């Protein structure tokens, strides 16, 4: 089974997932490993099971077969409630856009994971906000922010409390080219500083050079290969 010698933040083995029993497989992954503190660019055009894979790794969706080990937890052995708590405490997650709760201030948005979970700490907010260039926005309403500012706030929220894994689902696709690179540098820098592994999914191949590992989801996922054939 898993090799205990090599600690990993994500380890998928023989994972199969379908939305309903009997419906076609959406995911069929033989093996995927992301080492501790490592950054990975996962290339995936739309419709290749990208969001589904992230759902499985984040413990929102439950794989029917195989082994899903994330940050040392065997997710298929955890109950749904335990997985929710685990996700809130240990993971950071950044969406493509609209990351923020519209009725909370920037500060409250960033601190929300710490408020939701006792096991997650909200310290270091000011430093991180300064590093991400949003220090003067903390008490604003989120609707006043530009898209780029919103994504940086989302990054701060994902990184608050020092999670060991940050999952980013096309976080740059709403940004223009100039902001895209800047955002990515900030995100990678902060993740590295926090010792967090970063799983970055995008269809924009131009960014992949900044990552330590580059993978292609269609190659990884046998389910899409079968469908394509």
């Amino acid at each position, binding site marked *: 089974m898993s090799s205990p010698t090599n600690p990993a933040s994500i380890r998928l083995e023989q994972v199969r997932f379908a939305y309903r029993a009997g419906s076609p497989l959406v995911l069929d992954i033989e093996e995927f490993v992301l080492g501790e503190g490592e950054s990975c660019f996962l290339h995936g055009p739309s419709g290749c099971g990208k969001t589904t894979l992230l*759902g499985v790794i984040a413990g929102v969706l439950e794989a029917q077969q195989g082994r899903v080990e994330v940050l040392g937890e065997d997710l298929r052995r955890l109950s749904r409630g335990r997985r929710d708590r685990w996700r809130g405490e240990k993971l950071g*997650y950044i969406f493509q856009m609209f990351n923020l709760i519209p009725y909370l201030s920037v500060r409250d948005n960033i601190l929300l994971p710490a408020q939701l979970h006792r096991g997650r700490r909200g310290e270091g907010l000011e430093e991180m906000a300064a590093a991400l260039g949003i220090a003067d926005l903390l008490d604003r309403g989120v609707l006043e922010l530009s898209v780029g500012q919103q994504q940086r706030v989302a990054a701060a929220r994902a990184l608050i409390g020092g999670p060991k894994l940050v999952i980013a689902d096309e976080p740059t696709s709403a940004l223009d080219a100039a902001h895209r690179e800047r955002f990515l540098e900030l995100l990678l820098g902060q993740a590295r500083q926090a010792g967090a592994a970063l799983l970055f999914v995008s269809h924009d191949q131009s960014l992949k050079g900044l990552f330590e590992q580059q993978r292609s989801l269609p190659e990884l996922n046998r389910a899409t290969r079968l469908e394509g054939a």
Partner: protein
Amino acid sequence: MLIASLAWRSLRNRRVTTGLTVLSIALSVALLLGVEALRLSARESFSSTISGTDLIVGARGGGLQLLLYTVFRMGTATNNVKWSSYEAWAKHPAVAWTIPYSLGDSHRGFRVVGTNGSFYERYRYRRTRTVEFAAGRAPRAFDEVALGSDVAAKLGYGLERKISLTHGIGAAGIMDHDDKPFRVVGVLARTATPIDRSLYITLEGMTAIHVGWQQGAPPEPGEELPAAKLTQKDLQPEAITAFLLRAKSRIDTLRIQRDVNNYLDEPLMAIIPGVAMNELWSTVKYAELALEIVGGFVVLVGLLGMLVAIYTTLNERRREMAILRALGMGPARIVALFVMESVLLAVSGCLAGVGLMYVGIIALQGLLEREFGLYLRWQGLQWEHAIYLAIVVGAALLIGLVPAWRAYRNTLSDGLSLRV
């Protein structure tokens, strides 16, 4: 608590919808409580039409009938009480006071009550209020009359006006006592009870206008006795219609009632006003029930408005749900968030509703008392109201489960995908 704080801030963010929803719940709650206050006030107004009287005594017949013609000036008596019987009871050692009523005449549709000084002195309504004069004084001579406030207002009569009474309850002009006109010497202050709708003369006056009458028929022409020729003997009443009685000790009431009912000289009956009033009120129970049912439905409509208001936000809030899921909020807490929003809306609605009702009662009190003789009183927040409000919040909680359940389904099917 975080969920409550999130729910509160989410509601505050949708100010207009939230405000309108709270307003609709507040209006429905105010209406429910207002209807309840109206119901209790009507009941209280009704049952306090007469206070301080232990027994009403009249000729044997229907108890309800006796109550109606003595207290409410409705219907007629079939028999009289002999003056000697009245005197016997008035002087009874266990009796504190009596108020005699002699009925049967009218003036332009308003009843005429022959009574004596103890009516102005002893009669109580709404617990402790007495009959008072807005102008003038009580009639003392047999040709003097005092008017209830409605009578004075509707007919436009003032002091010193001469009026003639009509025999029986019919329209004026058929059998008028125009041989013996009365002079208005007093106008009673408004009581908002049936007292306002009567004219008051002395017992002697009542006797005087019927001198020479036999078997309810007027004297033959030429046989009328002019007022000037009436003697004291002529004015001695032979009978009255009924009398109100107060016992020296409340404990004696039942004994006196039994003794009156067994009185050997003539068939009499005594009723306890409170008991008879309750009996009468129970006949309008259906109206009360109807009011309550309408109130309940009004609240239901208000809460359905809340359901619509929350439900329509569900789609635009799917993104928010996905974010909360990503932050590790379980479906149970998402359900709790939605239910909490409903409960907060309902609680704010209830509070605003109670306030609205207070304002409404203060605003309408004067009008209702003036126009309808209904004394609208807010009895203070009582257990029943607390129970009503708890039911409203409980119903909101149940109704809130509907959008919450839908949101729960959404979060499970959406997972982490952002629906835009």
